[in-house]
């Protein structure tokens, strides 16, 4: 396994998945300190350009903590978020960026353990891929 410590950007939702991330902290469940969170109203609002901006800026992976069927706004929130991810991945594919640098999973408001597990496994995946800077530098640069 690689020693590289990847940076992860999480998009969470204010009412459902962000409370799960809070709960993980409340329960002192540890995950990588290189995980940064931006809270939205609903993850269906994630624009492909935000994902691409993050990757271009040096974020190694983007994790979208969707509400799934728990979404207070719309039952198809995960489907819509998936469409944004697919659009971002089209560009990533063109640029030669590994598509597994974007991941989505549904988290409920008490999914502290699943969140931590996702962060651990996503960190491992990204560590094995290495720095995004190398990837963009080699394939896009």
């Amino acid at each position: 396994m690689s020693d590289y410590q990847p940076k992860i950007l999480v998009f969470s939702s204010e009412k459902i998945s962000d409370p799960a991330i809070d709960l993980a902290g409340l329960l002192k469940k540890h995950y990588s300190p290189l995980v940064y969170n931006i809270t939205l109203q609903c993850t269906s609002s994630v624009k492909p350009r935000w994902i691409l901006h993050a990757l271009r800026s040096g974020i190694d992976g983007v994790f979208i903590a969707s509400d799934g069927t728990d979404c207070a706004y719309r039952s198809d929130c995960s489907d819509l978020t998936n469409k944004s991810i697919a659009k971002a991945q089209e560009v990533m594919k063109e640029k030669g960026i590994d598509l597994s640098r974007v991941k989505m999973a549904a988290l409920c408001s008490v999914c502290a353990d699943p969140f931590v597990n996702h962060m651990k496994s996503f960190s491992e995946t990204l560590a094995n891929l290495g720095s995004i800077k190398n990837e963009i530098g080699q394939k896009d640069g």
Partner: protein
Amino acid sequence: MENQKSKIGVYICHCGGNISDYVDIEKVKNLIAREEGVHLVNNMMFTCSDSAQVDIVNDIKENNLDGMVVASCSPKLHLLTFRDVAKRAGLNQYNYIHANIREQCSWAHSDKTELATDKAVRIIRAAISKVRLSETLEQIEIPAINTAVVVGAGVSGMRSAIELADQGTNVYLIEKDHFVGGRVSQWGKLFPTEEPGENLVERLYHKVKERENITLFTGAEIKAVNGSVGNFELDVHITPRYINGMCDEAIQDQVLKACHAEVDDEFNFGLTKRKAIYKNYPNAYPETPVVDMDLCDKCGECLKICDGRITLDQKEENISIKAGAILLNTGFDPYEPKEGEYGYKQVDNVITLQQFKRLIESNGDKLVYNGKKIRDIAYIYCVGSRDAKGENKHCSRYCCTSAIHTAVDAKTKFKNIRNYHVTRGIRTYGKQETLFTDSSRQGDTYFQFFEGAMPTVENENGKALIKVKDALTQNEDIEFTADLVVLVTGMVARKDENLVNIFKVPVGSDKFYNEIHNKLRPVETVIEGLFIAGGCQSPKNIRATMASTLAASAKANSLIQSGMIALEPIVAKVNPELCEWCGACDDLCTYNAFEKVEYEGKTVAKVNEAMCKGCGACTPVCPTNAIDVVSLSDTEIETMIDSFVRDVEFATTTTEEKADSFAEVVDFEKQVRVLPELSQRILDSLETEPKAIPDIAKELGVAADDVLYHLMSLRKYGMIKDTDEINEDEYYLYELKK
């Protein structure tokens, strides 16, 4: 970008060590002070304390700050607190951004303190970049229907309905069962009034019926919910009673005898059978019995006796109701022991506390179970509770009191019985402790076990043999037989996944409904307009249930009674310059928030702010990128990302930088000494001699609590210390640390 905020105040909270034990606050402060737009940075022991709030208000006013960042706990706890601080200081509340450096930093990374410090800097930097771009916003007002739906007509739901109705709110009271009263109607005498549960139910029911603005639906189940706070729309399915009104009591008896279809009676926890035509108990309300159509085979025997009133062809109904707020008062389930747990369902004479309560109610002057007279009763406590490795880790708090009260009640009613309590320590807290005294005086025997050595129950010649390693007699192995074993079971969350799915109400790891904050917002949920109270939230006795019920009713009423609700202005916004009206946003929006308008000779989309919920689902589908959610624009999100990524350069070890760093620390210490006036006065007071908190408070003419708070800060910064001595009133003395 124009109009960026350039005088930002940043307040970093120690949270009494919850943050500062893991995050190097001074390092963070020094780095944050260098950020663009930051005018001042202050560290505080508790930013949420009253005195800190006053300091922040004064800071904002004196420095004419145009933005504020508070870096502390989750915004779910104190966002509203600091918005209020901003308002008091004359700062627009949306020019304040919260940075969560506790739940998502110091606690989550307490194992890696250096990286936690690094992350705290990045999180605060992102908040600063967001506040720099923040707009001055006003809340959106939407109409609210002054009607509440109360789900569950137990004592909690009925009390909620009465309270709301008396405050002028119309109420739909929805009960799934055909009779009101919930769990309380199943219990006999209640401590301390000794009033039977069914009497309490009866009184509340009559109060409900007296109020014209309460509509009670029984046999009613919520099937779907649409809309949102202020204007919920609920689809309710109603199962009829199949009986029109009351008939003569004698005829009722004949009808019940004629009905041959039987099933275990849930009301008596399966101890007895009930017919297809039934009432939970003779005085159940509403008074009209009900026909269980799942059980009825339509033999027609009842129709021969009571033709006309029993109408088996009544139709089920679906109705739609509108409400501004919803209160969930759906109660709890008693824990059902697993088969074999302390002999449950394997040893004949093992029942639960709830069954025992029904047994007492249904027996006359002799206590009989399964045809056998009962004399010796063993009560095993904490069954299905306080199980560190099991599903139910919680203590239900009410069970010790309930078990002892039931034991006292049983001995009062059936004189010759003997009670043996096998406990894990008695928790008859508060006034309920008198029950324990009563029980001891009447001769009840107590044993105590610990989690590692659980008692066992076996069958021995038709009796139950109980073995317990008794901690009260130096772990002596004790064996005794009992005619009846009562398993004292606690409360668990109801298995109502349907409601969880419909309302999207969050549940905790204990499966009970989850409030926003256990202490600060105990009856609100993250779903605006949805409140929780009573046993559906956590185990509660009736008194605690009523307290939460009244709180939830007051919150719901205050939300909707004015007919208007102030909503967050975090809604979608269309840039008409970029919009070319393609309809993609309109097609996607489920709230019908878009309308077509003309703008400079072209058709564009416009957002109806009252309809928009701010989900932002429309923003990625716009082909011209003309839509943003307010405060979550591309620029705001992307500068936040940049702030996360930008390197954090901690102070290095060169002599020059060390000197700089030292200077900053000195500056910081000066601020601590100078800024809080009371801290300085306390220091001055301690110049003469060591003093205790009450003495300082008296001397300075301030509250002892305020002195305590400032002393904590001063001690944290190493400016004072405890003397390890106490004065004649037994208060600790504090002195200057020189």
